[in-house]
């Protein structure tokens, strides 16, 4: 049973008319993972999740949840997943416990298990004191948590959460993250999407960066960072002297590992900065610096542009835009 991945997609394609929403997505999520789907709006995250939640049929390709093909046996798949859409409504005219009771019944949870389950779930999502409140009286963050609780009523193996933190204030985001962490400790496999990578970074065991319906990078966040570091952006600061700068640029351009050098004038006037895309490891960077100094260039500063997740994300998604343009 260990060998069966909780989520597996192979060459998943979804076409809406001419538009290709998902263009061959391959995902592999093992048991107990929290897997993040990251990408800008319209990247195909929601479509992928809807296919896994059996709400859309893929145009081609295969998708399995715990080994069951989603398009062939949706009912069985639905028993194993809890799905939280990106946009959804709640039944305003029910009380909180009635709402969960309703979904408990929907998933065929026996009546003697429903009442204790509702209590537990409300504790997990921090709505324990709101049991008898009407859903319409809940704040947005509370509704979001209630919707999260509803995905858990049948104790599914997999949670599919589409932008669970969208539209929440920072505090509510933190709360949501805490809940997800708790669910992870309970052994749930979670597939979660966001258009903000850092939001998921500390939470996820794996991430797939998606854009234009394709997986651009997939793996753990450190893997992705490492794979990007070889293609780092160096910031080289030089004494602001036109001739020297031109010479340095020319010198750098002769190195095959260096991309297009960009000049970035420093505000102080004493120094100028070159932004140098460099394809090479840390050793190669040190090598570059030494040979640069040996060549007589007046290097004041030499550093790699800090690659925070935001930047990784922008760069990864930006690359494809260039590729597409090319």
């Amino acid at each position, binding site marked *: 049973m260990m060998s069966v991945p909780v989520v597996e997609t192979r060459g998943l394609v979804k076409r809406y008319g001419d538009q290709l929403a998902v263009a061959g997505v391959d995902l592999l999520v093992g048991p107990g993972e929290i897997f993040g789907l990251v990408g800008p709006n319209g990247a195909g995250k929601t479509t992928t999740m809807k296919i896994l939640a059996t709400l859309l049929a893929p145009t081609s390709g295969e998708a399995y949840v715990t*080994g069951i093909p989603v398009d062939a046996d949706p*009912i069985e798949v639905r028993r194993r997943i809890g799905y939280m859409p990106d946009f959804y409504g709640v039944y305003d005219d029910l009380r909180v416990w009635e709402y969960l009771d309703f979904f408990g019944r*929907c998933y065929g949870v026996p009546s003697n298990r429903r009442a204790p389950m509702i209590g537990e779930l409300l504790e997990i999502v921090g709505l324990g004191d709101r049991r008898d409140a009407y859903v319409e009286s809940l704040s947005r963050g509370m509704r979001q948590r209630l919707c999260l609780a509803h995905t858990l009523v049948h104790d599914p193996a997999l949670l599919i959460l589409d932008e669970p933190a969208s539209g929440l204030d920072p505090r509510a985001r933190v709360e949501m993250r805490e809940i997800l962490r708790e669910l992870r400790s309970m052994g749930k496999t979670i597939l979660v999407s966001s258009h903000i990578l850092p939001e998921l970074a500390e939470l996820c065991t794996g991430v797939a960066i998606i854009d234009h319906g394709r997986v651009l990078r997939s793996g753990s966040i450190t893997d992705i960072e490492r794979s990007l570091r070889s293609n780092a952006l160096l910031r080289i600061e030089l004494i602001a002297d036109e001739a020297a700068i031109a010479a340095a640029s020319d010198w750098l351009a002769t190195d095959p590992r260096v991309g297009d050098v960009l000049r970035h004038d420093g505000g102080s006037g004493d120094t100028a900065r070159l932004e140098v895309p460099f394809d090479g490891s840390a050793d190669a960077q040190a090598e570059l610096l030494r040979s640069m100094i040996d060549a007589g260039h007046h290097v004041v500063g030499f550093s790699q542009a800090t690659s925070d997740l935001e930047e990784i994300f922008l760069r990864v998604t930006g690359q494809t835009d260039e590729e597409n343009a090319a």
Partner: protein
Amino acid sequence: MTASGTTFGSVRRSALREFGSAVWTIMVKELRARMRGRRAFIVLTLYLAVLALITYGVYVVVGPAARAAADQQGGFGLAQANASRLVGQYIFTVLSIFQMIMVAMIAPAFTAGQISLEREKQTLDLLISTPMRPGAIVIGKLLTALAFVILMIVAAIPITAIVLMYGGASVDDIIRQQVLLLAVAVGVGAIGLFSSALMRRTQAATVLTYCIVLSLTLGTAMVFAFWTEVAQQDQTGFVQEREQAPEQLRYLNPMVGMLDIVSRVEVDGPTRFTSSLYELFGRDLASTPVSFACDGIGCEGFGGFDQPMPVPVDAFGQAGRTDYWWPRVAISFLIVAAVLTLASMRLVVPAGMRWALRRGGARRMAAASLGAPMIEELPETER
């Protein structure tokens, strides 16, 4: 064989139980929201109060005239019974027609938002991503919406039963009236549900529903009348006898059904109240008066012998009259309800997943044989 037979049976039974509990799930949720507080009970009370008021009004208006007619005929025995019977007839007629109009107008109002509202409020995705069958969702919604309408119909029985004190209408007539009202409620409710599943917006669904209901009641009546009128004249303009529009046109007209039931109790021919309705929905529906005696209330619009009479109506009153129109109307509405409910089920399922839901069982077997983990490995019958 026996062993496999029992497993098949138990699987089918458990599938049925699952379906039933899903329907019940929807009903419990909807009823919780709908019947909460006093609103539903106030509406019901008001409705019954209106019915009672109408009954009293009919008594006040018709009673004296009927008594006067009875006095003219001697004022004793048979004449008095006749007067009492007339009051009963009138009450039954007015209540039946009023209730039919109410049912045709209220039932769609309850169902026309059932699915489109879920779409508008974005709750439908949550609902259909549960393992519940779309059929159970649709039927649960229909039954809940109809529950209140059915309550209104059934709760009015005691008021209608007042006519039993006066005579004129029998228990059989009340049963006929109830059966037709319930059938029309289910049919019209299904029409609302279907438009709700078809249309994105509740507003559009409501408009569509009332358009359909109007064209069924008034539209078919007008087409029928016009068609008959044209059919009765050939090119030379001579009136031909017994040419009528296809009678199937009337099978989905709730008023035809109700007038058919009402006409059974009008042994003296159409009353002043109903004669204009017969003009609209077909004069042939009116029963032929037993005698030519004027009852002092509804002398005009005898209906009678000058009209073509293709329907097997016994010319001498209701004694030998067969049930013709109303069962056809009732059955037609039940068929419409079944067809539209099935259509709604398909519309609720997200496009592209429809075939998968049907063939899920077969694929499940295939998946199981490939070694996919299964909670329960069910044979193909579980669909």
